[in-house]
């Protein structure tokens, strides 16, 4: 009887490697030894353009507040919220957040008022106008969000975090009202990709969150994830070569 359970060895080993890489990268980032470039993400560049267009037309910018503040995609949405709120405050563009989560409300308040404060435009910040609470329930919120779109007629709508079956209805309504639609999600990929103008595909959303927040630790874990991906890519390449030349060795190692 061995100490380790067979069939679980390689995945356990990978788990360990991932921990070492990620924590190592975060430590490096803390010391400030990490210089990172992020590849261009078109949807991110589009955010600036979209806010600029909203400023020109004088129409507001609308953002989906995301689901509970514990979800990863909602956390990424918060980083983007900070960014959009700041650029709206700077340009004096009207900005509206439609909040869905009761727990998320205090977090959203903190982020948006903080953004206005950083830009020195706290006098423009009217909480009742900027942050609107709909309903925590999926379709009740969807109908609230659509009402908001119809009454505000935003020039730019951003959605990310906690989107599921109702995402398409929100997207459709926004676009039909003439809004630029940028969204990001880890599910509902096909639907949102098709119906948004720009879409942050799955991991792109997290990368965007890390990039916009400028937090070196988030960037570090992004880089760590990339190293893990490269390890896996190398495994695939090597494994395929081994198999093609008739050796099962690497495959058996991975299946260990």
């Amino acid at each position, binding site marked *: 009887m061995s100490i380790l359970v067979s069939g679980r060895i390689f995945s356990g080993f990978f788990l360990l490697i991932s921990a070492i890489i990620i924590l190592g990268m975060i430590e490096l980032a803390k010391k400030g030894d990490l210089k990172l470039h992020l590849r261009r993400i078109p949807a991110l560049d589009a955010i600036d353009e979209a806010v600029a267009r909203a400023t020109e037309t004088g129409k507001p910018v609308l953002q989906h507040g995301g689901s509970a503040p514990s979800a990863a995609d909602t956390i990424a949405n918060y980083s983007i919220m900070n960014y959009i709120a700041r650029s709206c405050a700077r340009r004096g563009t009207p900005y509206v957040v439609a909040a869905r989560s009761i727990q998320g409300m205090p977090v959203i308040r903190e982020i948006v008022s903080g953004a206005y404060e950083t830009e020195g435009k706290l006098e423009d910040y009217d909480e009742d106008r900027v942050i609107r609470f709909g309903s925590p329930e999926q379709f009740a919120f969807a109908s609230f969000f659509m009402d908001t779109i119809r009454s505000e007629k935003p020039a730019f709508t951003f959605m990310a975090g906690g989107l599921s079956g109702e995402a*398409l209805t929100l997207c459709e309504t926004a676009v039909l009202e003439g809004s630029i639609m940028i969204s990001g999600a880890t599910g509902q990929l096909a639907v949102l*990709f098709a119906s948004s103008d720009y879409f942050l595909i799955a991991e792109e959303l997290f990368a965007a969150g890390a990039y916009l927040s400028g937090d070196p630790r988030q960037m570090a874990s992004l880089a760590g994830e990339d190293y893990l991906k490269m390890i896996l890519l190398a495994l695939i390449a090597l494994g395929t070569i081994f198999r093609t030349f008739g050796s099962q060795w690497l495959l058996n190692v991975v299946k260990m």
Partner: protein
Amino acid sequence: MSVILKRREIPIALTAFFALYMMIAYHSNLPWLSEKAQLTVDIQTFAQILNVMALGLGYIAIMRLHAGYVIRRVKHPQPWHWSLWLLFVLAITTIVGLPWGNFGVRSEPLQFIFSSILLPMRGAMYAVVSFYMASAAYRVFLARNKEAAVMLAGTFVVMLTNAPVGELLGAWVGNLGTWLLTTPSMGGMRGIRICGALGTLILAWRMITGRETGYLRGAAEEGD
């Protein structure tokens, strides 16, 4: 006292302990530290019951929210009399659903609520999306550029594969659709799946080591 209890370190330590214990127990085969060890079973039972005990959170939150709407006689986001109706339905469902007297989840009244209100209406609610699907198909599925054209073509073939009417065009439609589904799309999905799993893995390590405390964010819910 409360200053100590308020510290973020306590919940982070709890997260780390439970997560690491479970992970190690899964891989180890020692008699006192394995998946089948008594301690593991106890911890899991504890966690399961704890999860179930969260059942009232959503309930209380909704109740407080709508009670607040009723008390303040609000017009937005919905006129308050709808909130009153919501509270009424909530009360009725709870009264007939709790295990007392002749009531309970298997009693006639709750069976009625389940089979003639919740089941059909929730299905219909989701099906509303299908109308928007039709509208989206009309609006977005334009071969504006190469990307859109390729996507459109893929969707087209798969739709004809899924609907029996596609077979009238010949067997090749079905074969092509199945090939698209099981070869390029399967590869793409696998790539997405691997990257998504890596993302969760990274997030998990950051939570365990206390570098990601987003889930502990949020403040007390403000009652109205």
